[in-house]
């Protein structure tokens, strides 16, 4: 009953004519972009400081995004118009067989030109979601998901025009929804959260630009365009992380975020360049992808491109060793953190892999290996970041490391060939991570601190709504059945195909990834349990009287927790439900995964009850241990002694040398920051830069100065010796003058006759040389 679904190879890739909404999705990023300028220039004069413009723009964009989703759902199954493929030009759609003959053009390229009669149908048809659902039911022949490609000339170089425009397909339409929704909620939340800030207006301006850049990124049709958006996202994060730049640590964090991203961008630049040349001069995603799949680009090039792009992903999506900026980025306002971690900045990397999946798929040979760079980085990140999250005292940093760990899941999933699982996790993670961040912001709003150990504890009594939503989102994050996190994480674990689970997975058996994924799941539950205990349970350790936040904060929390709980339902695995509900299975997969010529035919693992049970058990074991430690031991001891405890005074760390060493390692975040700041940055800024300047001063300037001095000296010699010396000297007798000229001059002109002779000879030689060479 479980079917192994390997995506078929399709011929068509894209169309340029579709539903009017799909054709004009460029409006969606345009709205917040306009809002940015409006707020920047006129925001201060508006009654609400520009927030209203921002909310209106992103709200409208949200509505459009929903419309686009609906339109896409219809388009996905019902589009019947002419389709094209980058490699073969215009091709007929599916079943039509009435070829009108072959046209041979001047250059000998043979193209098949087809009249399409059914073209207009797909556009005019009433959008009907239900119909779309039923049509794609089991047994139906697979229908290509034709992307909608629009564009206009951007620049000409080398005689070739390059386009800017939109590429709309499953993943981008999904991201449109996620980005606009989270962004809208963050906007609303922020009106309360940053109320009264001195740069309220600028804050909203950059929020708008941030959303706009991310939307441009997900809609980009070419790598070049994506690069622009990618960096714009980076610079917005710079502005927002450094929002409170009066404090040096904040601007330091912003700088670090930007610079680390810039390091990765080198990889992106090089990756794009390799792909550009390997594909014979293309930036277009679809063309590159199709050529990669068709074997038009050789494996070596793809591997190098994939490696370079991985570097970009590592920095942007906070993968291990380049992740250090992410926790520091918590210096920004909390809603920004939510936006960064849930929908925008960090997901860009994952999305980039998803976009150029054929490059990675073939470049890393994902189909045929059991370990590769991408999955390994992801797996290490899952566990490495999960461990560090354990020792953080700052609630936002716990969440930040949690994000790093979850991004690790996504990258790992992409690395093992579970594309849909990765995207699905991206989708669900957006909701519960945004919920958690906004929840932590709500807490911090109340206690004016982020430190769980010193300023929180027992907040469940004061902030019931925040508490509940936080718990729901945490449960979803930990992947407890049946929340959204469970479904997406389980799909990733199945997708690894480790130890033969998901029998018949053809993407190779990634045993290690499965183990790491399970460990990560246990860690996730455990550190979230710790965070919940420290924040909401025990005794309140802060100052003042905390109180629940206002509606503008709690309502977004509630909405997000609803999604966190329920979003998993849109991609139930096959065979899980039957009967009239069966069409609801794998909806996400169906509408998001591109089924077209520009996407590889990846094998899909079959869900395994067995693995689900094991994963749940492991995933619950972690929180169980943490629960036992915090809720029973620590809480009990605290009640017993009447002190406000956050850890057991004589715990493992205090007693065991190895545990202490491990703790120190984690506390120092694997000493990576020391490496970067003290070793690399310090040496470049210090000795190396100073060395360069020394070289400049001493060698280059010295040479020039000495040449100058030399000429002056020669001039002096000519004047002193020949003019003054010979004439005056002969007349007056050299004795007087030479004694008058003094010791100083004597020392300066040690050269005497022979030195002048040397100069003369050298000069004559050089002149002769010039003569010889030129004449």
């Amino acid at each position, binding site marked *: 009953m479980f079917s192994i679904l390997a995506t078929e190879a399709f011929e068509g890739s894209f169309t340029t004519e579709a539903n009017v909404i799909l054709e004009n999705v460029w409006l969606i990023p345009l709205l917040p972009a306009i809002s940015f300028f409006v707020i920047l220039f006129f925001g201060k004069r508006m009654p609400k400081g520009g927030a209203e413009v921002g909310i209106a723009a992103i709200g409208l964009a949200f509505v459009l995004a929903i419309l686009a989703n609906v339109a896409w759902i219809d388009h996905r199954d019902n589009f019947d118009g002419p389709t094209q493929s980058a490699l073969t030009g215009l091709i007929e759609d599916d079943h039509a067989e009435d070829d009108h003959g072959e046209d041979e053009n001047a250059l000998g390229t043979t193209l098949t030109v087809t009249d399409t009669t059914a073209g207009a149908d797909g556009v005019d048809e009433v959008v009907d979601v239900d119909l779309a659902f039923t049509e794609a039911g089991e047994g139906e022949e697979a229908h290509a998901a034709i992307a909608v490609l629009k564009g206009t000339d951007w620049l000409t170089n080398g005689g070739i025009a390059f386009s800017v425009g939109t590429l709309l397909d499953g993943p981008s339409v999904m991201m449109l929804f996620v980005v606009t929704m989270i962004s809208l909620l963050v906007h609303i939340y922020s009106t309360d959260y940053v109320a009264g800030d001195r740069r309220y207006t600028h804050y909203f301006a950059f929020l708008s630009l941030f959303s706009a850049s991310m939307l441009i990124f997900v809609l980009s049709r070419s790598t070049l365009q994506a690069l622009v958006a990618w960096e714009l996202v980076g610079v917005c994060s710079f502005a927002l992380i450094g929002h409170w730049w009066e404090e040096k640590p904040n601007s330091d964090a912003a700088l670090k975020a930007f610079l680390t991203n810039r390091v990765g961008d080198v990889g992106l630049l090089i990756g794009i360049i390799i792909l550009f040349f390997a594909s014979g001069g293309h930036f277009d995603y679809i063309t590159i992808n199709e050529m990669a799949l068709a074997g038009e680009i050789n494996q070596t090039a793809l591997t190098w491109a994939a490696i370079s792009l991985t570097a970009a992903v590592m920095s942007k999506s906070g993968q291990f060793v380049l992740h250090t900026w992410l926790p520091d980025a918590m210096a920004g306002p909390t809603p920004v953190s939510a936006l960064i971690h849930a929908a925008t900045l960090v997901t860009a990397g994952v999305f980039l892999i998803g976009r150029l999946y054929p490059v990675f798929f073939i470049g890393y040979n994902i189909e045929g290996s059991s370990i590769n760079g991408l999955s390994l980085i992801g797996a290490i990140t899952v566990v490495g970041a999960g461990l560090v999250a354990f020792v953080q005292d700052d609630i936002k940093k716990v969440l930040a490391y949690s994000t790093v760990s979850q991004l690790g899941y996504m990258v790992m999933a992409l690395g093992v060939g579970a594309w849909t699982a990765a995207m699905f996790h991206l989708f669900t993670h957006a909701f519960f991570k945004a919920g958690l961040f906004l929840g932590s912001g709500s807490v911090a709003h109340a206690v004016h601190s982020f430190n769980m150990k010193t300023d929180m504890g027992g907040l469940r009594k004061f902030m019931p709504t925040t508490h509940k939503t936080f718990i729901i989102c945490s449960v979803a994050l930990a992947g407890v059945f049946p929340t959204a996190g469970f479904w997406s994480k389980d799909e990733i674990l199945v997708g690894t195909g480790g130890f033969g689970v998901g029998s018949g997975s053809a993407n190779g058996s990634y045993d290690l990834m499965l183990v790491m994924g399970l460990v990560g799941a246990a860690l996730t539950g455990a550190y979230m349990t710790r965070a919940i205990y420290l924040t909401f349970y025990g005794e309140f350790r802060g100052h003042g009287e905390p109180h629940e936040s206002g509606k503008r904060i709690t309502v977004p929390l509630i909405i997000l927790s609803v999604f966190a709980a329920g979003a998993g339902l849109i991609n139930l695995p096959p065979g899980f439900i039957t009967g009239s509900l069966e069409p609801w299975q794998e909806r996400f997969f169906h509408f998001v995964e591109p089924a077209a010529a520009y996407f590889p035919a990846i094998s899909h693992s079959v869900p395994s009850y067995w693995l689900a049970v094991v994963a749940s058990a492991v995933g619950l074991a972690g929180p169980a241990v943490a629960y036992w430690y915090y809720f029973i031991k620590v809480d009990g001891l605290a009640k017993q002694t009447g002190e406000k405890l956050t850890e057991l005074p004589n715990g493992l760390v205090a007693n065991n040398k190895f545990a202490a060493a491990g703790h120190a390692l984690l506390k120092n975040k694997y000493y990576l920051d020391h490496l970067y700041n003290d070793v690399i940055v310090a040496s470049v800024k210090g000795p190396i830069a100073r060395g360069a300047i020394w070289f400049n001063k001493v060698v280059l300037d010295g040479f020039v100065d000495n040449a100058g001095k030399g000429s002056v000296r020669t001039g002096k010699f000519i004047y002193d010796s020949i003019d003054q010396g010979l004439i005056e000297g002969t007349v007056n007798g050299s004795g007087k003058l030479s004694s008058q000229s003094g010791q100083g001059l004597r020392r300066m002109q040690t050269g005497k006759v*022979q*030195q002048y002779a*040397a100069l003369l*000879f050298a000069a004559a030689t050089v002149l002769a*040389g010039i003569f*010889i060479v030129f004449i």
Partner: protein
Amino acid sequence: MTEAFLLAQAVEFDVASNIAFAIISIVMLYSAFKMVTTGNVVHAALYLVIVLAASAAVFILLGSDFVGATQILVYIGAIIVLFLFGIMLTKAQLGDDDSVASEKRSMGALVGTLLFVVMAFALVDTFGNDEINFGDPEPIAFTPSTVDASDLPTPVREALFISADAGEVELTQAQFDTLEPEVQRRVPGAEVFGNNKQIADAIFSQYIIPFEAVSVLLLAALIGAIVVARKE
């Protein structure tokens, strides 16, 4: 005379003369190098002698035996003696001259190298592998004469179809002209119109004025040297 003849055949003796050149030039350059570097003044003068002698050899190698001879006579014979006088009169330490300051040395070396590089580049660039052609026969003058056939060298007899016992034969200009240059040289009464003669012709006709000027110059130098060096 015979030397000139041999040198005229240098094309055939290329290998031999190249070897000679190599030896001469090595000796010359080594001595020159020692001359400019040695500390001992007298040694330097002696090295100079070797250099001058070697260059005389080069002149001879090039077929200018007159210049070579002049070189030996004037230079080695006269100028060196002058130098030795100079050394002795100035009471320069006969042993170590001086230790040349190292920056001065490097400066000199730099200039010298630069100079050489530029010259070498120019020379190689301009002349490449141009050969010195010694093949052109020197003009041979012939005075018709009567000789005993048995005195004639065999090649001449064979070329002129004269038997050895032909007795007295008269050689005419017409006969002479039919001969190959190599053979002509061996005809009695033929005179190779050599280098020295040409030089003498040139100096005393074409270059008579410069020659006189040089004479005056020498005289002036003589007087000038006396005036300068004379004690007040």
